[in-house]
């Protein structure tokens, strides 16, 4: 998958809003593979909606979204399953981790599906992100900042053409944010993937190809 295109797209809830001024909604924009994007937003502008539309679990938008020219409204269940395993990765703002599992298990549950990373690579990430001692801790016992790092690792243990990260560093200090950005970009560059980062304020300081105001 090389391009994600939004043609005059906007959330249905905004249908009656006349004051919509956005560089994404109701515009024609294209995300290219291999590029780095920052989508800046104030709250309530539909940042998470954008992620959910692109990830295929909400369809309450108007306009057209295409992957490589194919309207995503026509994708079937099996298509989305394949996309989520091989082409598209999302790190949710609300993380969507499993509190019943340990930190490592939360990453492995995805890695076993894709068989993408060796366990030692995952261990190295744990180490670099400073939570090596939390590998076998139940997720419910970890802070939100620590959980964000686990969620990032889970987003990276799969092949992808586009990686979307929704508010990835909201609870991280600068040092850990930097480390996480490095790991993320290392993986994305290696895969030649496009990265779409969203943020409502604090964002990773990186060399963005394009910054869009939502």
């Amino acid at each position, binding site marked *: 998958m090389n391009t994600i295109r939004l043609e005059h797209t906007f959330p249905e809830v905004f249908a009656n809003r006349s004051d919509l001024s956005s560089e994404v909604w109701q515009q024609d924009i294209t995300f290219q593979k291999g590029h780095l994007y920052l989508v800046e937003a104030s709250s309530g502008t539909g940042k998470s909606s954008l992620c959910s539309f692109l990830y295929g679990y909400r369809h309450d938008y108007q306009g057209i979204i295409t992957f490589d020219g194919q309207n995503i409204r026509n994708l079937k*269940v099996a298509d989305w*399953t394949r996309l989520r395993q091989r082409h598209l990765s*999302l790190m949710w703002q609300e993380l969507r981790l*499993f509190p*019943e*599992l340990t930190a490592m*298990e939360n990453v492995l*549950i*995805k890695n076993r599906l894709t068989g993408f990373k060796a366990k030692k690579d995952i261990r190295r990430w744990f180490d670099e992100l400073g939570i090596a001692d939390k590998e076998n801790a139940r997720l419910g016992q970890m802070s939100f900042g620590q959980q964000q790092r686990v969620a990032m690792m889970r987003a990276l243990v799969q092949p992808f053409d586009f990686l979307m990260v929704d508010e990835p560093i909201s609870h991280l200090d600068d040092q850990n944010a930097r480390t996480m950005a490095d790991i993320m970009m290392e993986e994305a560059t290696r895969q030649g993937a496009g990265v779409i980062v969203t943020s409502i304020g604090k964002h990773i300081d990186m060399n963005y190809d394009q910054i869009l105001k939502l």
Partner: protein
Amino acid sequence: MTLIWKLLRQHISALQLLGFFVANLLGMLIVLLALQFYRDVRPIFSQEDGIINNDYLILSKRISTMGLASTSFSERELDDIRSQSFTKSIGAFTASQYKVACSMGIEGVANFGTQMYFESVPDQFVDTDRSQWHYQEGSDLVPIILPRSYLAIYNFGFAQSRSLPKLSESVISMLDMVVVLRGNGQERRMRGKIVGFTNRLQTILVPESFMKWSNSQFAPESDTAPTRLIVEVNNPTDERITQYVQEHGLDIDEDKLKAGKTTYFLKVMSGIVMGVGLLISALSFFILMLSIYLLVQKNTQKLQNLLLIGYSPLRVSLPYQLLTIGMNALVLVLALGLLWWLRGYYMNLLWAMFPTIQETSMWPALALGVVLFLIVSVLNAIAVRRKVMAIWHG
């Protein structure tokens, strides 16, 4: 243990599953036991083992209180009986329409006389040696078959009380018998010869050819529609016979239908018991479905997240499907085991009472169990899948 299972087993209620398990086991066992018991007991009442063995039934119309309604069978009624699936062949009793007087004696001295009647049935229904069973028109000799019970009545009732000699079948056959036929303004004396005795037919039989000739000779105008029928049936225990006889207001020898009624009763009882078993099975199925629905409901968030990180609905449904199928399989195995054990228990009782009965196979019960298992499992799997798809679609 896979991570998915570690996630999805959260909120499984052991108590609910136990409730399902017990209920389903009970339902399944009752269904299978009813079928097996029916199959095991039926041979006792059916004719194959010879405990009750009657291929022939005698049908007549029930005589009304006033005795006025016609008791003869029309052609249409005969055809109807002939077309029933239990009927192999059918023969009409034809009664003599003229007066018959008969006297018996030894060496020409008549010492026993009575008014009587003749009946005939098609020759194929006569169960004695038929070598002398024919009538030559113009001949004076009439072959006669008597019911064996008449001889018993004479020997043990009449002869006993009058100090008369008891007669064996062969002695009777040697008696001189004079038969006088009267009707249509004619009279004719003939010689009767008793050629045999029958258990099957409670009447005084003459060959059908003689009956045709004599009725045309002595009562040419009379209606000869049959009033009694002899029916050869495939299986006298067939409960359809009982039903037919009741629906059409016919009379039939009670003894011969007892087995049929018992079999019918057995079938109805087994049917009711099986129905109850199926009902319990159905209820247990709903317990399981409710339990699974509740489980899916409580784990909706986990299921949704699994789907979002790329697990297919198939993979996500599988653990719950395997859970239900595994439980159903366990229920099937246990039910069959219990069936085998219970059957051993009652078969010992049956063998003690009826040493000759043949052992029937357990295959049909096994097949029924497997069919039930498949139906319930497929429905379970579909229901789980639908629930997961509902989560997919939000």
